[in-house]
């Protein structure tokens, strides 16, 4: 899991709901199917918003971690 190839970095720090999820949604088409976005947010609301968005749109969170106040999501485009 540590060698995930990241296709696009998104800095979502400081953005409040619903903007972290909106930015992920806007950018998912910029990576190829099978590609990965690494999104770094600080809004705790993203802890539910981004995984719920992934599930309801058929994409996948392949890794999620926290570094201090940074909430980091690895989002794989499935379709």
């Amino acid at each position, binding site marked *: 899991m540590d060698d995930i190839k990241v296709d696009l970095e998104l800095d979502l720090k400081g953005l*409040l*709901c619903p903007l972290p*999820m*909106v930015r992920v949604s806007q950018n998912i088409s910029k990576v190829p199917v099978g590609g990965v976005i690494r999104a770094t947010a600080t809004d705790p*609301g993203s*802890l*539910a918003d981004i995984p719920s968005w992934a599930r309801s*749109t058929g994409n996948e969170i392949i890794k999620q971690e926290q570094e201090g106040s940074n909430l980091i999501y690895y989002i794989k485009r499935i379709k």
Partner: protein
Amino acid sequence: MTPEANARAELLQLIDSKMNRTLKYYLDTCVRCAICKDACHQYVATGDVLYLPAYRAELIRRIYKKYMTGSGRLLPKLFEGRDPEDDVLLDELYKTTYACTSCRRCMFWCPFSIDTSWVLAVAKALLLATGRGSEILTQLADSAIDKGKNIDLYTGVIREVLKGSEEEMRRIVQDPSAGFVYDKQGADVLYVALAGTHTILPAAIVFHQAGEDWTLSSFEGSNYGYFLGDTVKAKAIAQRIVDEAKTLGVKEIVMSECGHAHRVMRDFYRMWAKEELPAPMVSILSKVDGYIKDGRIKVTPGKITEPVTYHDPCQIGRNFGLFEEPRNVVRATCSDFRDMTPNRQKQWCCGGGGGLVAETEFDDVRLKSGRLKADQIKATGAKILVTPCENCRLQIESLNDHYDLGVRVSAVLDLVVEAIEIKPR
């Protein structure tokens, strides 16, 4: 019937099912006086007829006239009759409908009080039925419903992350036992915040100081199903809070500083669900105004010395009726309060409502139409802009950058926390 004729019949049936007496009155009564041209911030700022309220409704009226009135059936060309599956009409309808912030300023100007936002609810139903609903609003609504179905997956991790904010709360209120309250059976207040901690921490501090018996909802108040115009999804999103209130047996549902959430819970839920709320819905603004008046919390008068102005969110002011309560609270905290002109019922929409802050395809009209609000803010000379609505705050932050306003954008409770006199417990 051919498949095309069947599809048209279904769309007409859908429109007809939405056409109650009031809506027919709206569509029959408009005399195209165009008084509404001076009311809509989008039309005033752009001059584009697409944003003229009468024209927004006109697109639906053309279908209605052609298929649902005798005169229109006889002389469809006279009424510019259109078909509900007409791609050109639907493209135009999409742009004008999802760009509308539903601020209802046009209704207050209209001599017949025609509620264009209600007509656009029919437009949204038609757009959804033809596969033309807003994609991002659909995703936001679907993810909120998914969250409701899988809330157990999230509560643990969210509450863990919120511990940092609880630590901050304990430091501010000087009470090592203070913290956020979860799942409290029989609490007086179910507080419905927004996603994230910024609407939780200030309220928790105020509740602690007021000695309120409260518990925090697991769900956010915002409802993108409502903006989308999908009443099934909107109801499902609101239902999460209603079910939680029933399970906990709370006495009041207190809504945080979010405009449309106020209206969804007080005005729309009962229409969609055909049942009353299990407990009265009260605005956090009314609660805090009451706490100050009753002496349950004390704020230092004039603590905030920089000039402060207040923006009436359309869904809290004009459409919900809360004008004085938030002003009472803001005035209690600052020494230099400056109201904008116009204000209250006649205030200009900031341009960010209706889900527009999430719909980047409308960024151009959102920023252009925000110029009126930006000019109002500048004219006050205020350094702090207060408004109790998340969409308004996001929009005004955007205007702050775009029009170089140089204001600090704040929620009402943020000012209260700045001015509150802490009583150690």
